[in-house]
């Protein structure tokens, strides 16, 4: 269980990025965090990853307080961030340095096959397309078998087709070991197609605005009416989150019905 307890962050330059954010996230749950810019989404993710320390509150994973990067927490960034001097295979195996070479090779080969890039094992990162590079980044993060995988707008730099492709692929990979996924995104479509729960945040300072449970069976049909209904709920919450005069609401699942449009 990943628990966020009143996590807040004020940067040294005085920017109040995140205010008392609390949430409990069950193992295997997929959470999408969505909100306008400056609502502390990335700050929150970096605090969970242990890359930045929260100013107030704390992040705990199975009762361990997270203050620095943790073996059970992986992260995928907006850019693939592959190491240009390592081959694709060595990039994927980067987090397995402690394992014996034979085991490492096996796990890397399996991961390469799983993301469909076996033929690129010996290629340099510069020889990959954007989508391929991000797939390598996903494989690199998943190969140490994290319990929590954080994704910071992982597909936002890709074209629409590749993005869809990778969203489906991510779900597919997730099903293998079912880690907790926490995904920061700008894309309502992406949030609804992936998440069990969509958390809408409001800016300045960043805090939780609304929570929408997406109880749709997977695989989800992006063209179904129900899908649209959930999308509209998220959109409405997003719209309202940007209106500074609105009271905070933390409504579950029926958020949409309470709103007018």
């Amino acid at each position: 269980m990943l628990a966020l307890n009143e996590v807040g962050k004020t940067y040294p330059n005085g920017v109040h990025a995140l205010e008392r954010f609390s949430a409990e996230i069950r193992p295997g749950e997929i959470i999408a965090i969505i909100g306008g810019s400056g609502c502390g989404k990335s700050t929150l993710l970096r605090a969970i990853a242990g890359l930045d320390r929260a100013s107030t509150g704390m992040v705990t994973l199975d009762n361990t307080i997270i203050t620095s990067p943790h073996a059970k927490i992986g992260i995928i960034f907006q850019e693939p961030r592959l190491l240009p001097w390592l081959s694709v295979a060595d990039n994927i195996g980067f987090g397995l340095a402690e394992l014996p070479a034979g085991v490492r090779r096996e796990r890397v080969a399996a991961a390469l096959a799983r993301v469909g890039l076996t033929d690129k094992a010996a290629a340099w990162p510069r020889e990959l397309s954007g989508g391929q590079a991000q797939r390598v980044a996903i494989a690199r993060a998943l190969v140490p078998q994290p319990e929590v995988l954080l994704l910071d707008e992982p597909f936002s730099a890709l074209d629409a087709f590749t993005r869809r492709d990778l969203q489906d692929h991510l779900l597919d990979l997730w099903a293998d070991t079912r880690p907790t996924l926490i995904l920061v995104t700008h894309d309502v479509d992406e949030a609804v197609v992936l998440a069990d729960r969509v958390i809408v945040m409001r800016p300045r300072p960043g805090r939780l605005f609304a929570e929408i449970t997406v109880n749709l069976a997977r695989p989800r049909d992006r063209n179904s009416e129900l899908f649209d209904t959930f999308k509209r709920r998220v959109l409405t919450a997003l719209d309202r989150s940007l209106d500074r005069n609105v009271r905070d609401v933390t409504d579950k699942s029926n958020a949409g019905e309470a709103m007018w449009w």
Partner: protein
Amino acid sequence: MAMTVDLPALDQGDAGARRAAAARWSRFARPALGLALPVALALGWELVVHLGWSNGRLVPPPSKVFATIMELAKSGELTRHILATLWRVGAGFVLGVVAGTIMGAISGYWGLARRLLDPTVQALRAIPSIAWVPLFILWLGIFETSKIALIAVGVFFPVYLGVMGAILSVDRKVVEVGRVFRLSGFAMIRRILLPAVLPAYVVSLRVGLGLGWMFVVAAEFMGASEGLGYLLIDGQQLGKPAQILAAIVIFAILGKLTDWLIEVAAAPLLRWQDAFGARGGA
């Protein structure tokens, strides 16, 4: 209708042959292109002297320079001078590189050391290194030590600056990848920082080596009894321009050769680079 054009097998073979020809062209003809100008100039001058339009006393023709080199080589003099110079450049280069790398790494990695050390190093860098010569001779004597010290000083600065700059400009995002995988300080250096700074480091080594060659001449101007720099001075004092040119030509060859050695040694480590130059440029 689909707009695919299937080449007949024959044409494809032709295209293959053309590609092979193009590859041969880029492998042999392109370097040859660089030789065209100097060779033409040398031949031109040779012709001018041969036709008697100039006596070539102050600017001896290539054949005379070549003859001088052969003469020096036959007597064993040339080897002695080359070895003396190579030893000085080698020793000075190694000292300069070791000092520059260590201090550059400390300044780049550790902010406090940089604030403490860097202003002084930068101030020293502003001094023309030749200005050290009298002091070095007083301190270290007229023989090898002062010469090697001067060369080491020349090599030190570009290596120091290159290493420090390279470490400071390592992408924060790549370092963060190391943090995510919980690399310890040493592993972070070995697995992230070192490979990231390597391209810039190789460049700084090459710049340093170039300066090493420059400074060995200055060092050998001050009272050497052997070395290529001594050949220069000796040629001037005895009025032997062919000997001066011979020494200059050998400097050029050795400089290019040692630079090429660094390049070749580093090439396997830098294959991953996606550089403009690696593709042969435009």
